[in-house]
C-alpha cells in the first residue's frame, strides 16, 4: 500500500550528492513530492528532507540505497505521524483586490501579509500541504498572481540524533 513517507538524509559534502540521491529515485521511476536541503545542527553536515509516496517495502530499499552513497551518514524514514513538519507557502495578490474580505480570510487561516508593494501584497502561510492548499482555493477569488510552496521541513519524534552515527 502506498503511503506518504519522509526521508531525512544526513550528508557530508554537498556537491554531487543531490544528483546521486535523486538518481536513486529516477532510476526506479519514483516521483519526489518534496525536497528541501539545509545545513543541520552540526556544522558541515547537511540535512535533506525528501517526501515520497510509496510502499513500506520500497521506502526501506530506497533508504538503504541512499545510505550506500559514500558521503551519506544516515538516512531515516518516517510516516507523517512520526514527524513534526511544516511547509511554507507564498501567495502574490494584486493590490486592487485588497479589501476587508481578504483580511478576514488571512486572519482565519493564520496567514499574514509579509510584504506590501506598489502593485501587490505577499501573503505567507505556514502549515501542512492540505492547509496551504485550502488557503489557495479560497484566495483564488482575489486573483492569486503567483503561488509557491516549499518542500517539507521536518523533525522526527523519535529521540534519535545524528551524533551517534558520527
Amino acid at each position, binding site marked *: 500500500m502506498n503511503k506518504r513517507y519522509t526521508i531525512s538524509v544526513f*550528508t*557530508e559534502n554537498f556537491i*554531487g550528492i543531490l*544528483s*546521486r540521491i535523486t*538518481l536513486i529515485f529516477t*532510476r526506479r521511476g519514483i516521483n519526489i513530492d518534496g525536497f528541501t536541503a539545509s545545513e543541520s545542527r552540526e556544522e558541515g553536515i547537511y540535512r535533506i528532507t525528501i517526501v515520497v509516496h510509496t510502499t513500506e*517495502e520500497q521506502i*526501506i*530499499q530506497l533508504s*538503504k*540505497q541512499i*545510505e*550506500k552513497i*559514500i*558521503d*551519506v*551518514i544516515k538516512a531515516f524514514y518516517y510516516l507523517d505521524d512520526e514527524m513534526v513538519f511544516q511547509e511554507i507557502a507564498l501567495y502574490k495578490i494584486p493590490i486592487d483586490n485588497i479589501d476587508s474580505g481578504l483580511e478576514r480570510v488571512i486572519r482565519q487561516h493564520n496567514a499574514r501579509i509579509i510584504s506590501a508593494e506598489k502593485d501587490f501584497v505577499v501573503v505567507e502561510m505556514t502549515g501542512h500541504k492540505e492547509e496551504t492548499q485550502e488557503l489557495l482555493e479560497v484566495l483564488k477569488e482575489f486573483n492569486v498572481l503567483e503561488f509557491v510552496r516549499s518542500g517539507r521541513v521536518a523533525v522526527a519524534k523519535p529521540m534519535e540524533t545524528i551524533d551517534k552515527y*558520527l
Partner: protein
Amino acid sequence: MKDSQIRGAEIVIKSLVAENARYIFGYPGGAIMPVYDALYDYMDHIQHILTRHEQGAIHAAQGYARVSGQVGVCMATSGPGATNLITGMADALIDSTPLVCITGQVASHLLGTDAFQETDVVGISMPATKWNIQVRKVEEIAPAIAKGFHIARSGRPGPVLIDITKDAQTAMGEFNYVPCLNIRSYRPYPKLDDKAIDRAARLINQAKKPYVLFGQGVVLGKAEKALEEFLDKSGIPAACTLLGTGAISESHPNFVGKLGMHGNYGPNLLTNQCDVLIAVGMRFDDRVTGDVKRYAKQAKVIHLELDPGEINKNVKCEVAVLGDCRISLEKLTGKVDQRTHPDWIKAFRELEAEEKRVVVGNDLSPTKVGLTMGEVVRHINEFKSDDAILVTDVGQHQMVAWRYFEYKTSRTQVTSGGLGTMGFALPAALGAQLHDYNRQVICVVGDGGIQMTFQELGTIMQTKAPVKVVLLNNNFLGMVRQWQQLFFDKRYSFTELDNPDFIKIAEAYNFRVQRVDVRGDLRQAVAEMFVHEGPYFLEVVVEKEDNVFPMIAAGSSVEEVRLS
C-alpha cells in the same frame, strides 16, 4: 615556491606508487598529458600498459583486479577517452570489482564552456561508480586518490573515478601521502550480530534439506576456506553462481553444481525443494532466480551478506546475517551440528546423471559431424593446469565454457556477469595474464564479441603476454540466435555474421595461429596451444546452430528448467 614542491601530475603518479599499484592501463590525450609526462620519469616504479582503446584499458584493469584481488588502475583523457571507460565502470560496479579510474579534465576555468573535449564525466559516471570526484586543486589530488583506493577496495568493492583538471595537474604542490583508512560517513563492514548467527544455526540444525548457494562474496571476502569448513562439518550440498565459481573446488564432495539460466539441472530444480536456503555472498540476480515469485517459496532463507542494500532486495529472508561472510561462516561452523545429508545429496546426483545423459554427453563427446563448444572445453581440461584462469566473453561460448571448465581454485573464473559485456574477454585476459606471466590464461571468446575489442590483440602483441585465445566460431551471434530459434520462430534477424579471416588478423598481430574445423585435429591443436610459450590464437569452427541447455527461459521458474 619551495624546492620540495612538485607538479600535480607527478603527485598523481607518486600517489599510485604509494598505493603499490603495479600497472596503469591507459591511453593518453590532451587533458591527461601532464600525467603522462610525469610517468616518463617513473617507468621503473610503475608499469603503464598502452591499450588500443580505453574500453580495453578498463577491462584489462578489471581482469587484473579479479585475479589479483588488488585494485585495478586505468587512466584516460577527457571527453571521448573518459566516456570510453563508462562501460567498464558499469561492469565493475555490478560485478563488485575494485578499480581506480583517473581521467584528465579540461582546465578549471574552461569547465562548463563546452571546451574542446570537455565532457561532464563526473555526471555521466555517477550511476556507474561507487564514488567519484572532480579535483581542481593540486593539494586535493593525493587525498582524493587515497580516498579512492580505500573506497574501491573496502566493503563491497567497486569502481571509483577521479577526474583531475589540467590546471591541477600542472600546478605545484607538496607531496605528502596519507593513506585513507576511515571515512566517517562510510561503514564498509557492518557489525556482525551474534543473535542472527544463533538463529541461523538453529534453523540449519533443524533443517531436513538445507541448501547452500554461494556467490562472489565468498571470493571477495576471502571466505573460501571458511565455506569449505562449513560445508565439511554441516554436510550441506552447495551450488555456485556464475561469479562464485571456483570459490571451492568442483571436486568437493558437497559441490552439486551451478545455478542460473544455463546452470545445472539439479541445482536449479531442487531450489524449490529445499527447506532452508543459505545464501552466502550472492545477490539473487534474476538470472539465478528466474521468476522470483515462484522462487524457493517453501524455504526459509538465511542470507549472509555484506551489503545491507542486498538484504530483502530480491528475495525476502528469514534471517539476515549482515557482515563479512568469512567471519559469519566461521562462527556458524562453530554452532552447526556435524551432519551428513546422503539422501538429499543423492537427489542432486540423480538429476546430475539425467543431465549427463540428455545434455552433457552430446556436448562433450558428440557423435554428429560438426564440432561442439563443449568438446573444445573438454580438451582444454585435459591439458590445462589446476590453477589455469579461464576468461570468457558473453554468449553461448561463455555458458558452455563455464559449464564444463574444471575449476579447482578461487579467482580462476573471470567473466562479465552482471552486465554481460561483449568485448570484455580479450582485454580482461590480458590483464589477468599480466598479474602472472607464468599462469595459464585461456580466453574463450565468440566470433561476435572478439570483434568488439579485437584491437587489443595489439596490446597483447606489445606486452608479449602469453594469452591463449580460443575463438569458438559459430558464425553467429549465437546466444541471440538461440533465443530467436526458441522464442521468435527462428526469425534470425541480424544475427548471422560475414566474418573476416580471423587467422590472418591474428597472424598480423604476431600470434601463433591454428584453425581447426574437423574433430580429428582438435585434440592435437589444443595440446600444441598449451605447449607454445607465447600468445596463441586457436580458432575452432563449431556447429552453427547448437543450443545451450539446460535452460530456464526468461520469466520461467527454476523448477521449469528444461533439458532440451
